[in-house]
């Protein structure tokens, strides 16, 4: 075991001597030589396969062997090879994954020198790291601040030096991934129970028959000894009979069941990959079923847990409307939607620095700017000055804003396009270009945002020397701090705000105040004192801020649209109709989350709000949440997302689906029964840990309502039919036992037993479970209610299984006793023997094959060409193979194996045989038809109703409609602004600005805390100081948080 890791810089040989893991990650299990033994070993670890191996061993014991070895070997080999082929393909695919995972520690200017790092061995702790660096015989300590984890992105830094400490599988990421839990579907779990039950049934039948054998041997068998000498001991005979019947009746535990299920799931997964309607042309991304074992679970989803940003919304903010000094600008969105072609966006060509992607449709606003209306100018000046955005200008005129939140980015970009271009900032200044004239404002203070203040202000001195305070924030907060003279404007603005909020826009109110030089310098002094105070610093600062941010003048309000993904509202509505509960789990704060809730119609005006704040009341939370129509959880950490999912899984026993796009959704995606990843801009973590992935949230409805529903339906139909056909097949042996002295004589010939599951009945049922549809995709989407039976597990349950078994029991009775009675004491039409064992076997086989075929035809509701081919082909195959196996040639080849020679020719030309076949088929199917007809007449299910409707209409499925939902709401948003605390500090401290730090940094200066930027604008509940904003819920930092942060330990 590695105790300590030693790495020397630029000393390859020394480092190689330890044989540390290399950078490639090998996820494949096999190589060509180990494949066969390893794979076989693995396969026989599966209970089912081991069971068949055990059977095989039983079959070679002559005293027990009631069936030739090949009846087990042929299916077993087939099953093993199909599985092996699948494993091999999976393995070849996974061999290609090689990734570069680096763990870095970096130091300035140590290249070429001889330095050595000594650190802890690889582990999965993301929050701590210990080690020492020895350089020129001096030791420096290394801690968590000095390492870069795999997956980090460097920001504002072009390059850095480092040393790879852990590579490949030893990186903290890989150590942290753990083994993803193997997900199983609820049908799988039910199957485990059922298989146990079947084993019980098998044992019961064998015990009954063994006892029967004991009794028979005692009474009749002993008298028959002259013709067939045997052991004296009846108990021993019964014991042997027990095992013999275990062999014969083994088909109740169908060997091909599991492999068939895998094939079906694989096929249905391919349909998802192939679905054009789930292909997103914009990003050239088709949907992908990354897990091929969970399909039918998609048809049983009861709860959806959705991330918000990037999943429901595009995480794109657009400056949509504004109200300036009582005048509203911006076009109504719904009108805009309809008249899009006629609308021309505002021409920003007068502004060389304008962002070409920015679109605005109200020309009056740009006129206002050009006319130099003071209010309009003040409005945009405020937007250009009051923010914490950073500008990067690599080439002249090519501005890139790095905004901490997309809201801010949208506002600053809007100002930029309207001629108030934010160019650059230093800790003390902000440079903007006002209508082509560059002006540098002196930045005197940033009164930063936080959750209580819900506003931020800057105090600047313009080039003319005038002091001003600019403030933006939540309407309620700002309104309290306005000068009484603004009341007229306030009234109008309030109306506008209501209007904006009604459209689901995020609003902010802007205000300013001119400051007195004397007052400010005095305030500045007090501010300085407070900010260095050791006690109550926060409160003191708070007070100071309160003091200066009052009697402000209202400028106006902005409305930013948090753009929803396409079709989100319709999708949510559809899913709600399918009685799927949707919970939105987001790291954002309440107001933002609520805002989105309204804008995608999850929340409606008439709903009452319930807030649950407590964290340690799991059950209470769950109970409350489940009463609610809509649940939106905000300020949720990634870990809590997973906990919520686990909670529902644990107490509601419902199938859950989690959908998300970001790394912070990974835990939730892994925790839920089904994880869906949106492949978007947020990187690949969510997709990589998901089971299904696609590009757009709206594809979810097709995934569930079409693919999921079909998969579930098909799997259930498959299982019901599969059990039916195998039970029926097997139970006939049971009845025959009572006529053959419980001697473990089979009813069918061995060839038929071997081929029944593999050839005669395999393809039709496979065809059914790959092609069947009760109603087509269009109708499935038209009636989301069709999804409900899946949630209630109505198609396959213990009850359905028992019905199957009962039906089989009845069918087997018919299939045994009708041929028995029909051939009793009769003869062929030429007087010769027609009642011999071989004829009886063939008659029963024919009856069985035809009956299960008819039953399949009854179950099949969608006869494609392939289904016809499979059904008729299998039936034909039965006759072809039967005749082939009974030919003279094969008999001459191996007389003992093909002893049924001539039976088919002599038997199937008899009219009474065909009359028997017809009668059994009619009798077996009759109760099923009657039951189905009666239930559809008395209490039709939703499926039957829809099918009836489809039949009546005789017209193609309706095209998916695109209805535009109009929502009117007077609800006012709070400070719906995804912004995190702590950036103001960063802006004024200037740490971020020392771009050329490399040249001036000396040695190792441990900084108290290392602020960093998150790569994206999402403030998922975390502030840049690495502290959670909600101290009430203390959770361990998860991998995801840490991966987001980039440690700039340079500065």
């Amino acid at each position: 075991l590695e105790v300590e890791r030693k790495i020397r810089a630029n000393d390859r040989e020394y480092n190689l001597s330890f044989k540390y893991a290399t950078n490639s990650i090998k996820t494949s299990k096999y190589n060509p030589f180990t494949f066969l033994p390893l794979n076989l070993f693995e396969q026989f670890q599966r209970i089912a396969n081991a069971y068949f191996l055990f059977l095989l061993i039983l079959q070679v014991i002559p005293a027990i062997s009631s069936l030739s070895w090949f009846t087990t070997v042929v299916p077993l080999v087939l099953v093993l090879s199909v599985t092996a082929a699948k494993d091999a393909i999976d393995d070849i695919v996974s061999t290609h994954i090689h990734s570069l995972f680096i763990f870095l520690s970096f130091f300035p200017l140590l290249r070429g020198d001889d330095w050595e790092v000594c650190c802890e061995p690889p582990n999965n702790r993301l929050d701590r790291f210990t080690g020492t660096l020895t350089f020129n015989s001096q030791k420096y300590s290394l801690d968590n601040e000095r390492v870069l984890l795999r997956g980090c992105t460097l920001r504002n830094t072009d390059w850095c030096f480092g040393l790879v400490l852990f590579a490949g599988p030893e990186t903290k990421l890989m150590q942290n991934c753990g083994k993803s839990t193997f997900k199983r579907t609820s049908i799988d779990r039910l199957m485990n129970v059922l298989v146990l039950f079947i084993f019980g049934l098998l044992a019961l039948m064998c015990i009954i028959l063994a006892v029967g054998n004991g009794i028979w041997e005692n009474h009749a068998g002993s008298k028959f000894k002259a013709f067939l000498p045997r052991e004296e001991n009846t108990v021993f005979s019964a014991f042997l009979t027990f095992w013999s019947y275990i062999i014969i009746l083994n088909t109740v535990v169908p060997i091909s069941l599991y492999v068939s299920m895998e094939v079906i799931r694989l096929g249905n997964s391919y349909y998802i990959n192939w679905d054009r309607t789930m292909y997103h042309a914009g990003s050239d991304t088709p949907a992908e079923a990354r897990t091929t074992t969970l399909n039918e679970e998609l048809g049983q989803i009861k709860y959806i847990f959705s991330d918000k940003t990037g999943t429901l919304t595009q995480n794109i903010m657009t400056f949509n409307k504004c109200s300036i000094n009582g005048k509203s600008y911006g076009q109504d969105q719904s009108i805009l939607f309809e008249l899009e072609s006629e609308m021309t966006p505002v021409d920003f060509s007068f502004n060389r620095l304008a962002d070409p992607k920015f679109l605005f449709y109200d020309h009056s606003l740009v006129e206002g700017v050009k006319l130099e209306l003071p209010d309009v100018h003040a409005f945009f000046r405020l937007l250009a000055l009051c923010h914490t955005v950073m500008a990067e200008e690599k080439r002249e005129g090519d501005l890139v804003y790095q905004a901490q939140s997309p809201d801010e980015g949208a506002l600053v970009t809007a100002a930029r396009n309207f001629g108030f271009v934010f160019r650059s900032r230093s800790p003390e200044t902000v440079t903007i270009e006002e209508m082509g004239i560059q002006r540098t404002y002196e930045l005197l203070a940033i009164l930063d945002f936080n959750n209580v203040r819900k506003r931020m202000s800057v105090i600047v001195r313009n080039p003319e020397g005038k002091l001003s305070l600019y403030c933006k924030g939540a309407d309620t907060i700002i309104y309290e701090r306005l000068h009484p003279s603004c009341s007229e404007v306030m009234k109008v603005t309030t109306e506008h705000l209501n209007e904006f909020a009604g459209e689901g826009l995020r609003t902010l109110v802007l205000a300013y105040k001119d400051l007195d030089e004397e007052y400010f310098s005095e305030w500045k002094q007090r501010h300085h004192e407070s900010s260095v105070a050791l006690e109550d610093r926060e409160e003191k600062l708070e007070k100071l801020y309160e003091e200066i941010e009052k009697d402000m003048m209202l400028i106006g309000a902005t409305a930013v649209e948090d753009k929803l993904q396409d079709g989100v509202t319709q999708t949510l509505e559809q899913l709600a109709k399918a009685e799927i509960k949707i919970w939105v789990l987001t790291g954002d704060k309440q107001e933002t989350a609520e805002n989105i809730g309204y804008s995608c119609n999850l929340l409606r005006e008439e709903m009452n709000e319930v807030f649950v704040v407590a964290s340690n009341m799991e059950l209470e939370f769950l109970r409350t949440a489940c009463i609610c129509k809509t649940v939106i959880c905000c300020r949720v950490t990634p870990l809590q997302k997973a906990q919520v999912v686990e909670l529902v899984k644990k107490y509601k026993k419902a199938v859950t689906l989690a959908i998300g796009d970001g790394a912070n959704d990974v835990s939730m995606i892994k925790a839920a029964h089904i994880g869906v990843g949106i492949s978007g801009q947020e990187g690949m973590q969510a997709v990589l840990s998901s089971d299904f992935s696609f590009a757009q949230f709206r594809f979810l409805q097709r995934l569930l309502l079409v693919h999921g529903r079909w998969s579930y339906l098909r799997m259930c139909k498959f299982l019901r039919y599969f059990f039916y056909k195998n039970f029926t097949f097997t139970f006939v042996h049971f009845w025959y036992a009572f006529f053959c002295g419980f001697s473990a004589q089979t009813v069918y010939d061995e060839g038929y037993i071997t081929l029944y599951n593999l050839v005669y009945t395999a393809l039709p049922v496979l065809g059914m479970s790959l092609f069947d549809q009760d109603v087509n995709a269009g109708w499935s989407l038209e009636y989301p209610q069709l999804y409900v039976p899946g949630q209630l597990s109505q198609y396959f349950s213990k009850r359905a299984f028992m019905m199957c078994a009962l039906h089989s029991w009845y069918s087997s009775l018919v299939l045994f006793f009708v041929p028995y009675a029909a051939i009793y004491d009769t003869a062929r039409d030429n007087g010769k023997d027609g009642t011999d064992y071989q004829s009886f076997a063939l008659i029963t086989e024919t009856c069985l094959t035809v009956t299960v075929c008819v039953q399949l035809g009854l179950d099949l509701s969608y006869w494609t060409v392939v289904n016809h081919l499979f059904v008729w082909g299998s039936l034909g195959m039965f006759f072809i193979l039967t005749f082939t196996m009974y030919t003279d040639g094969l008999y001459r080849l191996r007389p003992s194996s093909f002893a049924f020679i001539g039976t088919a020719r002599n038997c199937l030309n008899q009219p009474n045989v065909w009359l028997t076949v017809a009668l059994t088929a009619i009798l077996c199917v009759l109760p099923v038809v009657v039951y189905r007809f009666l239930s559809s007449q008395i209490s039709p299910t939703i499926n039957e109703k829809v099918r009836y409707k489809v039949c009546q209409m005789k017209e193609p499925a309706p095209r998916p409609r695109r209805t535009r939902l109009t929502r009117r709401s007077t609800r006012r948003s709070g400070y719906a602004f995804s912004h995190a605390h702590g950036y103001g500090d960063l802006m004024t401290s200037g740490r971020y600005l020392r771009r050329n730090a490399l040249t001036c940094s000396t040695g190792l200066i441990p900084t108290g805390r290392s602020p960093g930027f998150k790569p994206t604008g999402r403030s998922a509940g975390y502030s840049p100081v690495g502290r959670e904003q909600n101290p009430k819920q203390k959770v361990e930092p998860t991998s995801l948080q840490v991966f987001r942060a980039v440690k700039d330990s340079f500065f």
Partner: protein
Amino acid sequence: MGKKQAGTGPLSRRPDNSAFKQQRLPAWSPSLTPQTVLPTFYILSLVCLLLGIWLLITVEYTYELKVDYTDAGTCEQCFNLRKHAIDSSTPCKCTVSFHVPKTFPGDVFFYYGLRNFHQNLRRYMDSRDDAQMVGRKNNLKAPSSYCAPFDYDANGKPIAPCGAVANSMFNDSLTVMYNPTDGSKIQVPLYRKGIAWYTDKNVKFRNPPTNNTFSLQQAFEGTTRPLYWQRPVYELDDIDSNNNGFINDDLIVWMREAAFPNFKKLYGVLNRAQGPFTEGLPAGNYTLSINYNFPVEPFRGRKELVISMVTWFGGQNYFLPIAYLVTSGLILVTAVVLTTVFVKVGKKGKNMEE
């Protein structure tokens, strides 16, 4: 999985628009509607009814007569004699009289019937060597182990044919005498050959190769007869030497094991060439004389002579006609019930429209 690596361009990964991949294959989707189910039921009921009646009439004109001779007539003492294995070689003859009430017109078939004889026990059925019976030299000299303990005799000589099935071959010989009212006795002439399946006689059972110089007896040189047999396999038929060895019709018939413990096997077919039998088997009194060899007492079995006619439908079996009539009635009743439900409860489909 299923990812297409090839091709670039903006839509390179777009799935194909084929009906198969998009699950839009044209299909026929039948469903159980009243318009299809109810007429089908009525028609099916009618079809079953007609079939049932036709079959019933057919079976009504198929005569069958069973004469149980286990311990009837003078056979009681033979029956008792055969209780003990030690007396198995003592010949015993007996006769049983019976009456045929109606003339059996046309071809008449004579079967021997056994009750409670389990030819379908697994190990009994396995106890045979098909390779030996197809005349393979190797198996003749070294029978399959499945035949044990009837594979070798006490001296280690291979048994031909080996196994329990052949060993227990039915060995009563039956002669039927017609007793017309004039007091005379006419033996009912039977074809004793051509009673086995063609495939059995010509493919499944073959004698070891012989030729003009090499007789059947020589071919079986080195083997011994089955334990319970009185004569070797190559001397089964005194009259027709071509009916000896493994291709003996009686042996072949016996070797086709019955599916159930009560069964009958073809013994002979009435030869209608002459005498009073040209039209079939005339009504009247008959005597059955038996060379009583086959013991049935140990397993509480019965032996019988079955005289039967056959039609296209086979022998006299009332099951299928009655089953079809019952099924027809059943379908009719359910059809009426379904119609009632459809009209009353289902409101002629209005239920479906909600």
